């Protein structure tokens, strides 16, 4: 299916569309050609969009009852939980929603890493995606401060103090961030303001992300270019919409299993203790989705070094399209890269585990090895593989891996014979 131009059916539609082409846009979104071999890993973009909207809707509702003041914030959260009609539901959906959002974004990012979706011509999609990811982290961090519990306060203290590592101006920068000499009411207020703002910036970036996606079109599991005007693609609606919705339902099952049965499982019990600037909890741990970075921060035995490596671990991903010089996108055809991909996945999960452990003994040693490997993967292994790896032969079309199996074509023809419709016609 190729994409045909929108033709207004009525005079009114024509009048409207020639003045503001929203109908053309909606037509484009429906008929946007997607490769027919997209698997379920491709449904996470839609799931992410759902997560963002869920956070915005529940967030605006919570904002109607929340009070951003050090003396009232903690109590206002309890008020939401106990008094406000369905307040508990809004809060649990919002807090678990953040975790689900990160779960989905990690799957989405690793999908990109596996199938080489960051490679030409999709570099802009990738880089905007990373900007979205950074905004998500900033938003989640500031949101976690708002309940003004012990973890809120001390998490905010530790993270804002990262900036004090900057030589010379570090202290002025942290005082500027705090609006004082420690995390206090001015800090809470500005975090609230920004926590409200950033998701809307994220929303803007998502639009750019999808816009830049719609120029080259989707990558696919085979990783070769699809012929656009051929039967290798299908219109987004209804085919991808249905697939995305199926995946979304499964995702919602997990999401609401947490909301209804384990609402506090992913959070830290210390955050139900009001903030106390005189007592640091024994173990400060960030939310699970930031743990790998926390492990990197603590693996480096110097304050400035830790901060530099932590930020570098994200920024190295910006260079990925150029660090990985292999012309073959999908790991399916890269036997060696495929193995290293899984080693990287395990390393990141391991770092996440270590981020929750005290930085001593074997934990510290492992965290150092993991950190070193993480950078070696991107800075050394990928450039080398791009040069020396012998990749498997690529199929001529995305249909080949399916149809090349002995007898597959006959089976398809037989099955297609039972149905009527535009897409089965070519098989008969």
């Amino acid at each position: 299916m190729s994409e045909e131009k929108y033709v207004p059916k009525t005079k009114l539609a024509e009048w409207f569309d020639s003045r503001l082409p929203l109908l053309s846009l909606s037509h484009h979104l429906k008929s946007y050609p997607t490769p027919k071999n997209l698997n379920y890993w491709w449904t996470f973009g839609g799931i992410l969009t759902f997560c963002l909207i869920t956070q915005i809707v529940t967030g605006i509702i919570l904002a109607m009852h929340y009070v951003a003041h050090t003396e009232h914030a903690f109590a206002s959260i309890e008020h939401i939980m106990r008094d406000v009609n369905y307040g508990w539901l809004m809060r649990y959906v919002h807090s678990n929603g953040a975790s689900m959002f990160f779960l989905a974004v990690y799957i989405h990012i690793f999908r990109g890493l596996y199938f080489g979706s960051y490679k030409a011509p999709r570099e802009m999609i990738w880089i905007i995606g990373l900007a979205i990811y950074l905004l998500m982290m900033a938003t989640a961090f500031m949101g976690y401060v708002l309940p003004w519990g012990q973890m809120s306060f001390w998490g905010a203290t530790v993270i804002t103090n990262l900036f004090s590592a900057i030589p010379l101006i570090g202290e002025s920068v942290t005082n500027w961030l705090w609006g004082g000499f420690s995390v206090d009411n001015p800090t809470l207020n500005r975090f609230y303001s920004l926590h409200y703002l950033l998701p809307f910036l994220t929303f803007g970036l998502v639009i750019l992300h999808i816009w830049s996606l719609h120029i080259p079109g989707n990558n696919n599991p085979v990783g070769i270019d699809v012929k656009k005007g051929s039967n290798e693609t299908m219109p987004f609606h209804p085919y991808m919409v249905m697939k995305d919705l199926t995946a979304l339902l499964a995702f919602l099952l997990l999401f609401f299993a947490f909301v209804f049965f384990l609402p506090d499982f992913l959070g830290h019990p210390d955050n139900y203790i009001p903030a106390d600037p005189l007592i640091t909890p024994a173990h400060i741990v960030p939310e699970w989705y930031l743990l790998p970075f926390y492990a990197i921060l603590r693996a480096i035995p110097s304050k400035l070094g830790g901060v530099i490596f932590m930020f570098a671990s994200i920024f190295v991903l910006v260079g990925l399209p150029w660090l990985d010089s292999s012309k073959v996108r999908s790991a399916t055809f890269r036997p060696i890269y495929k193995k290293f991909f899984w080693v990287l996945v395990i390393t990141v999960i391991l770092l996440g585990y270590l981020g929750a452990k005290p930085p001593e003994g074997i934990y510290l040693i492992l965290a150092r090895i993991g950190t070193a490997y993480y950078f070696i993967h991107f800075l050394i292994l990928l450039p080398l593989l791009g040069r020396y790896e012998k990749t498997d032969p690529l199929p001529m079309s995305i249909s080949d891996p399916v149809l090349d199996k002995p007898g597959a074509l006959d089976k398809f023809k037989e099955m297609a014979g039972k149905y009527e419709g535009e897409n089965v016609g070519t098989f008969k």
Partner: protein
Amino acid sequence: MTNKIEPKRRNFLFTATYTIGAVGLGAAVWPLVDQMNPDASVKALSTTEVDVSSIEPGKEITVLWRGKPIFIKRRTEKEISEAAKVNLKDLKDPEKDSDRAKNPEWLVMIGVCTHLGCVPLKNKGEYKGWFCPCHGSHYDTSGRIRKGPAPTNLEIPKYEFVDNNTIKIG
């Protein structure tokens, strides 16, 4: 005027306009940035007086100053001599104990770990001073960093003895 001179003059005008524009923009943006700095009401809370008469030797109290914990420790003879006999070469951030405690019996420090800002625990760690549980920094009985990621010693705030029983911080 020849055709050759004209673009030069135009370039000059462009550059001059951009420069003035940039200065103007900077001046306009500064208030938007500076509003986030500590405000007058925060700065106004800058001194605290503490009565220390009830602190026994070896004991420590914590008071809040500018939102930060301040450790006021009345040290024992043993702690003072331990702090004094440390060789400066063994220190990451060399500082003499006598420079840190005007009156050796009293150690007044900002109780904020110089790593990432947690509050260290008293009488803990390998150097029997303070230990920060967050990422494992050990401080000695003079509050100097001995081991762990913290780069510098616990900071000494500005303070003075108003009389024998009262310390003014700030």
